[in-house]
């Protein structure tokens, strides 16, 4: 299935072409837009295939499953590809409307963004730990540069923290991959899944799993490791910030969903599930408390990324079809809504020249359409019933109560209320009241609202079609929890047979 390589290959090729046209921003914009536009139909087609029950697989060089590089597309990765393509397109549109300064855009903005998009898609498609490591490093390298594009305006201390923590996470990831290979003689997820569950003292597989959990927790900004995010994101180039906010941490979340359902299944049931629930609770609570305490739009939104990731991990920790399905639905909702909110935050910062709550006020008078759009996504983020955020949270709460996880359910409801409170804080300060000086005479330039309108329509569509979408999330969750489709795609009938019967494949452990 050669189509699978396109989500990675198209942005990479487009990036290379962009490098030839360093002088002309227009040509670079056109190339980047063409690549983003091509990714949309491809990823929707791939989702259509995966939703229809296929699990396409691409073996590079036609090596057998456990030896070569393999790309696999199951429902979860197809869904992530679609969300990545939508976010990439709207962020590109926003950047072209003037969200990026010309100086930054000349400083290789478009090639870096394309490289980032290629690496994110790669992480969703790859089926082994080492390729995942490489894609993580590419994501990080491009995001380091994108974070520092307008660096002479801000101090670099926060960026250094971001680089440092992620560099350490990368090395830990490599160590974990090496340890997994040393113990099991495999790096491929499917192959590892067959071997890990036969490992007999479990503490070895649990410790390798814990190391991976730490790595992905750093990427996903989970509870003890979230401090790098809220102060570095508001410094990123505004033209790429919505993509950052929507996709980067979600790559970590995706990896957690993949690894802790497929590879460390038994360990997750016995050991990681309570741990993930505890981390989820702490992440939700601390994230939202940080958001409530901040006084600028982008900082509040950055803290909300953290608290929302708690909900997704809550779903994973429940490890039941309904819980994981709600988690997946929540990921889809969150990516659309969060990147829209960052588009709105970026718009206000560009138009008004400030995003401080105490400086900006009375936007309902000067920007009525923007106010309406903000209200729709802000209520959706908080989980008000008819909007898209409600369904995921509702599913999580029902399943949490059924499993008797009262503490986490209570925290999640409390977090929803605090989310609503902090969204209302933005609403009352920024949109209500008398227009302040900087609103009456905007310092920034005018910029069109179209990408925001389209993204809001997308998130309303998620709410309207929540039935079929939740069914899709449910089938993705069942596929994840079962694991058979994935193993069959990579290792064929024989592997699936061994997976079902629990026999070893080859010998475990190479050296």
């Amino acid at each position, binding site marked *: 299935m050669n189509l699978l390589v396109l989500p990675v290959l198209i942005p990479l090729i487009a990036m290379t072409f962009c490098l030839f046209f360093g002088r002309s921003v227009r040509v670079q914009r056109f190339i980047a837009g063409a690549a983003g536009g091509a990714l949309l139909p491809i990823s929707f087609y791939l989702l259509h295939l995966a939703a229809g029950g296929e699990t396409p697989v691409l073996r590079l060089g036609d090596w057998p499953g456990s*030896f070569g590089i393999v790309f696999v597309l199951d429902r979860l990765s197809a869904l992530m590809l679609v969300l990545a393509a939508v976010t990439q397109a709207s962020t590109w549109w926003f950047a072209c409307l003037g969200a990026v300064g010309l100086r930054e855009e000349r400083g290789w903005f478009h090639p870096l963004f394309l490289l980032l998009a290629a690496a994110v898609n790669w992480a969703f498609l790859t089926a082994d730990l080492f390729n995942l490591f490489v894609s993580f490093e590419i994501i990080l390298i491009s995001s380091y540069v994108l974070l520092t594009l307008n660096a*002479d305006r801000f101090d670099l201390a926060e960026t250094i923290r971001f680089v440092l923590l992620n560099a350490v996470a990368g090395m830990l990831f490599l160590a974990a991959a090496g340890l997994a290979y040393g113990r099991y003689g495999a790096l491929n997820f499917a192959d590892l899944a067959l071997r890990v569950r036969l490992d007999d003292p479990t503490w070895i597989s649990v410790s390798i799993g814990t190391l991976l959990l730490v790595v992905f927790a750093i990427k996903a900004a989970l509870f003890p490791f979230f401090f790098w995010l809220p102060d570095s994101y508001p410094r990123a180039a505004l033209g790429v910030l919505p993509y950052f906010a929507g996709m980067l941490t979600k790559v970590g979340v995706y990896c957690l969903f993949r690894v802790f359902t497929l590879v460390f299944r038994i360990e997750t049931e016995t050991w990681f599930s309570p741990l993930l629930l505890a981390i989820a609770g702490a992440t939700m609570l601390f994230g939202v408390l940080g958001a409530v305490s901040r006084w*600028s739009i982008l900082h509040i939104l950055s803290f909300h990324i953290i608290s929302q990731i708690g909900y997704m991990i809550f779903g994973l920790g429940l490890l039941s079809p309904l819980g994981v399905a709600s988690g997946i639905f929540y990921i889809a909702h969150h990516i659309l809504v969060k990147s829209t909110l960052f588009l709105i935050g970026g718009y206000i910062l560009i138009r008004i020249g400030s995003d401080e709550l105490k400086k900006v006020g009375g936007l309902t008078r000067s920007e009525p359409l923007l106010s309406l759009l903000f209200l729709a996504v802000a209520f959706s983020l908080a989980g008000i019933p008819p909007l898209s955020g409600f369904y995921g949270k509702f599913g999580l709460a029902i399943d949490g109560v059924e499993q008797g996880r009262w503490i986490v359910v209570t925290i999640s409801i409390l977090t929803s209320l605090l989310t609503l409170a902090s969204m209302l804080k933005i609403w009352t300060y920024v949109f209500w009241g008398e227009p302040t000086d900087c609103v009456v005479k905007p*310092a*920034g330039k005018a910029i069109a609202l179209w990408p925001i309108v389209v993204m809001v329509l997308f998130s309303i569509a998620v709410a309207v079609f929540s039935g079929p979408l939740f069914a899709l999330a449910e089938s993705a969750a069942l596929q994840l929890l079962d694991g058979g489709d994935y193993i069959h795609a990579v290792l064929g009938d024989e592997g699936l047979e061994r997976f079902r019967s629990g026999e070893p494949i080859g*010998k475990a452990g*190479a*050296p």
Partner: protein
Amino acid sequence: MDLISSCMTAVLFAAGTFLILRRSPVDLVLGVALFSTGTILLLITIGGWDGENRAPLLQSGDSMRTLEDVVDAEEQSIEQQARYTDPLPQALILTALVIGFGMLSYLIALISRAEDAEGDDRSSGAGVGDPGS
């Protein structure tokens, strides 16, 4: 030998972590360097080096083996392969070295820029500042 290199890995990780937690930028860089050295040493240890294993290269007298033979050999005899060190961790190391070096040089560039900007009043703002326009 495994024991010595494992202990050495632990020492390198510990020293790297300690240095990263300090405030001085030079210590930061050294800490990252030690940390990545520790990772690489760990991978070398995983690859298996007891002084007797051969490099995974074909030498005179070896016959070319196809992939099917390798698969068969994996299931049949362990002695056949034990003479070689595992090549895959070395491939991992190669990639890790390249990425680690790039990362380290970027970090050094970033730190030196941050040091240059110190004292500049624009760099001390705590908030978000003006948009990227």
